C-alpha cells in the first residue's frame, strides 16, 4: 500500500472536524490569495500592460506570459514571503541563498567570487587584450592609464571562509592577469600584497567590499604608485570625524536577511565611518584658461562599486592632494564605467591626465558580455573563443 493510500485510510478514520481542516485552510488561503492578487494587479503600472490586447500576442500566448510576469513582479507579499523563507532556512540550516555563502560566524561572502566559469583563461586574456588596446590608444592621446587590481574578499579574508569552498585554480588568477598586462606594457598595480599585509579586517563581514581600512590602504598604494612615496600626506590630516555605526552590508540585503527581527538573523555589523575633509581645491584658472577646463580633475577613477564604497575616492583625493573624479558605477562590471566614460563627450572635450581603472578580481574570468565582445570588435581585437 502506498503512503498516499495509507494517508487516505488514516484520514477516513480521523474525526470529521480535523479531516476538514486542510480544506478549510485551503479555501481561506485561496480566497486571501485572490484578494491579494486583485490588489497586486491594481498596482501594476499601465505601461506594463502595453500591447496586452493585441490579437497576435493574445493568440501566441505572449499576453498571458505578460500577465504572469506582471503578477509575479508586483505580487504584494512576495518580499515578505521571501524573508519568511530566509528566516526559516537561516534558522534551521544557516542558509543564505544562492548568491551569498556563509563562512565563519558573521562572515558572508559573495558566491560570484567562488564561481568557476568555462574558458577562464581565454576570457581573462581577452580582457587583458582590451586593456592593452585601450592603454595604447590613451597613450597616443597623452593620457596615462593605471589598472588597479582589487583582490577578492575570499582571497584576502580566506581565514574566515571556514569550509566555504574556494577553487585552488583561483590561486594564480590575479598574478597571471597582472603578468599579462605587464607584458603588454600596461601600468598595473596589484593591491593584493598591500591588503594582505594590512593587519586586522580589510573587508566588511557582511558586505562584498573592502572596509575603510582596506580602501584607505588601497588609495594610499595607488597614490604612491602615481606620485611616488615622498609626496603623499598622512591619513590623519584629512580626517574630520570618525565614528562607529551599524552598517548592514550588501550581502545582508542580497541574502534577504535585512529587515528580519534580530532573533531571526545574524547581528548587524558595526563599522567605522569616517568623514573626510574636502580635497584641496584645484588652482584658480589662469588668464589663458578659456573654457575653465584647467579646474577639472586631472585624475579620473573608473571601475565598480569598490570605488564608491568606504571613502575610497575621497582617500585617494587626499593622498593625491587634488580632486579626483569618481566615474565608477555600482554594478559596472569590468567594462561598464570605462566604456561609458571613454565614449562620453566629457572625456572627448576635457580628457584627464591619468585614468585609474579599478578592476575586481572576480570579473576577470567571467564569460565576456555582449558589450565586451562588441568592444573587442571596435578595438579590432581577435575574438576570445
Amino acid at each position: 500500500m502506498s503512503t498516499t493510500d495509507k494517508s487516505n485510510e488514516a484520514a477516513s478514520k480521523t474525526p470529521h472536524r480535523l479531516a476538514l481542516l486542510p480544506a478549510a485552510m485551503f479555501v481561506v488561503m485561496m480566497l486571501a490569495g485572490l484578494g491579494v492578487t486583485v490588489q497586486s494587479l491594481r498596482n501594476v503600472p499601465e505601461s506594463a500592460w502595453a500591447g496586452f490586447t493585441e490579437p497576435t500576442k493574445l493568440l501566441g500566448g505572449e499576453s498571458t506570459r505578460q500577465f504572469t510576469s506582471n503578477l509575479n513582479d508586483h505580487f504584494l507579499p512576495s518580499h515578505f514571503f521571501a524573508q519568511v523563507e530566509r528566516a526559516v532556512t537561516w534558522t534551521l540550516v544557516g542558509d543564505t541563498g544562492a548568491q551569498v555563502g556563509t563562512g565563519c560566524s558573521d562572515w558572508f561572502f559573495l558566491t560570484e567570487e567562488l564561481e568557476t566559469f568555462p574558458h577562464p583563461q581565454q576570457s581573462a586574456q581577452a580582457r587583458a587584450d582590451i586593456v592593452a588596446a585601450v592603454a595604447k590608444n590613451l597613450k597616443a592621446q597623452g593620457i596615462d592609464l593605471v589598472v588597479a587590481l582589487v583582490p577578492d574578499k575570499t582571497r584576502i579574508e580566506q581565514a574566515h571562509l571556514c569550509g566555504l569552498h574556494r577553487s585552488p585554480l583561483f590561486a594564480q588568477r590575479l598574478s597571471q592577469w597582472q603578468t599579462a598586462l605587464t607584458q603588454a606594457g600596461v601600468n598595473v598595480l596589484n593591491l593584493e600584497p598591500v591588503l594582505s599585509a594590512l593587519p586586522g579586517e580589510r573587508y566588511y563581514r557582511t558586505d562584498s567590499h573592502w572596509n575603510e581600512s582596506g580602501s584607505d590602504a588601497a588609495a594610499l598604494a595607488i597614490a604612491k604608485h602615481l606620485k611616488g612615496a615622498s609626496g603623499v600626506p598622512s591619513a590623519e590630516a584629512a580626517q574630520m570625524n570618525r565614528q562607529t555605526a551599524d552598517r548592514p552590508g550588501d550581502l545582508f540585503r542580497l541574502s534577504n536577511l535585512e529587515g528580519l527581527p534580530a532573533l531571526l538573523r545574524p547581528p548587524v555589523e558595526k563599522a567605522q565611518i569616517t568623514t573626510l575633509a574636502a580635497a584641496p581645491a584645484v588652482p584658480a584658472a589662469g588668464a589663458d584658461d578659456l573654457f575653465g577646463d584647467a579646474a577639472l580633475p586631472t585624475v579620473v577613477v573608473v571601475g565598480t562599486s569598490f570605488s564608491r564604497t568606504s571613502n575610497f575616492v575621497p582617500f585617494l583625493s587626499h593622498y593625491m592632494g587634488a580632486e579626483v573624479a569618481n566615474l565608477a558605477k555600482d554594478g559596472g562590471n569590468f567594462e561598464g564605467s570605462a566604456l561609458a566614460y571613454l565614449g562620453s563627450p566629457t572625456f572627448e572635450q576635457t580628457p584627464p591626465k591619468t585614468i585609474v581603472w579599478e578592476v575586481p578580481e572576480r570579473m576577470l574570468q567571467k564569460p565576456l558580455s555582449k558589450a565586451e565582445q562588441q568592444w573587442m570588435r571596435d578595438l579590432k581585437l581577435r575574438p576570445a573563443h
Partner: protein
Amino acid sequence: MVFASLEFLTLFLPLFFAFYVATPQHYRNHTLLVGSWLFYAWWTPKFLLLIITLTVLAWGAAILIDKSHNEQRKTRIMATAIVLNLASLVWYKYTNMVVQSLNTLLTGHDLPPIPWVNVMLPIGLSFTVLHAISYLVDVRRKTVECQYSLISFSAYMAMFGHLIAGPIVRYKVIDKELRDRVFSVQEFGAGVKRFMIGFSMKVLIADTLSPVVSLAFGLQNPSFVDAWVGCAAYTLQLFFDFAGYSAMAIGLGLMMGFKFQENFNHPYLAVSIQDFWRRWHMTLSSWLRDYLYISLGGNRFGVTRTYVNLMLTMAIGGLWHGGDNWNYLIWGIIQGSALCVDRAYTLRGHSMPNYASRTLTLLVVMLAWTVFRASGWDQAMHMLTGQFGLNGFAMGDAIALALRPSILVTFLIGLVCVVYPGTKFAERGGLNAPAWSNIWPILTFAYAVMVLAGQKAIPFLYFQF
C-alpha cells in the same frame, strides 16, 4: 498555466471552484470544460484548436464505431482515427528531430540541408493522443460505453487536472463520474490534502534540486562524485516533480468528485526492473501493456517474440517521452533490454536477496535516467564517463559550491521520503497519525506557497512530454 504558479493558485483555482460549486449539478461538465479550455489556452490559445479537433475526431469516430454493424468497418474507422492522432503527434513532436538528423547527415556529405523552421510542440499533446487512442480502442473492444455527449467527452479529454502532464486517465475509469457525480465536502477535503502534498513535493524538493541537476549535467568533465551527485539529484527531482504533479492532479480530480488512478507507488523501492515499471508512471506502463504490448502479441507467440515485443514496447514508450533528441529512444531500449534480462534471469529460476536486487535495480534506473535527462548523446557520454570514474574521483569546484546547506538538507529530506515507506516507522503508521496527518500538509503547503511567491515558477519537467 502550471499548477505551481501564482495565477493558478490565486486566480484560476478560486474562481473556477466558485463557478463550479455554483453551477447546477447537471451543467458541471460544461463548467469543467470551459475552465479546462481556459487553463489550456493560457499557454498558447491557438493550439487549443488542435486539442478540440482531436477531441471531436475521437468523439465522432467512436460514435461511428458504435453505430456500425460491420466489424471490419469498425476496425477501419478506429485505425483511421488512431492514424490521424498519431500523425499529429509525429508532425508536432518528431519532425524537427528527424529533419535535424537528416540535415546532419546531408551536411556531413557536403550536401545542402533541407530548409526548415522548427515546429512548436503543443503542451499535453502526447497525453491527449494517448487518451484518444485508449478510448477508441476501448469502444472498439466494447469495454466502455460510447459517450454521445460531446460536452462530457470534451470535458474528459480536456480536464485540466490531467490535460497537460497526466496521469493517463482512461475513459472507463471516470465514465460513471462523468455522467453522474456529486460534490462532496469529504472528497474535496481529501483532494485538497493530496494537492497540498503534491504541491510541496514539486516546489520544496524538485525545484530546490533543479539548479544542482542543471549544473552537473552541464559540466564538460564531471568527476565521479560530480556525476553521481547530479544523477542522484535528478533521480529525486524527477520523482518529486512528476509524482508531485500526479498527486496534484489526483487531488484536483478528487475535489471535483473524480477518482483518478494512482500513478506512483514508491518506485525507488522496486526489487526488479519489472517491479519498477509496476510502480513508476503506472498509468503509462499499464497503457503500454494494454494497448501496445498486448496488441503486438504480448507473450503469446513464444519466447523470442516476447522479447522482441518487450523491446519494441519500451522503445516506443521511450520515444513517446520526447522528440527533441534520440536519447529517449535509447533510454527506452535500455529499459527494454533490462526487462528482457530480468525476465530471462527470473525464468531460469535465479533470484537474489532483496537488498541486492533493490540496489541493482536502482543503479540501472539511475544510469538510464542519465541518458534520459541529458540534452543529447554528447552530454549523456560526459555524465556516464564521470559516473564510471574516467574523469577522476574528487568533487569539482562547481558542485562543491552549489551544495549549499538548504540543498543538502532538501536532498536528505527527499532521500528520507523515498526510503521512509519501507521503514518500520511507516509500517506502524508514522506520519499518518490522525491529527498530524491533517496538519503537516497544511504547514508544508503554506511554506511552499511562500517559497513560490518569492521566486519565479520553474516549468514542470513533464511538460515536454
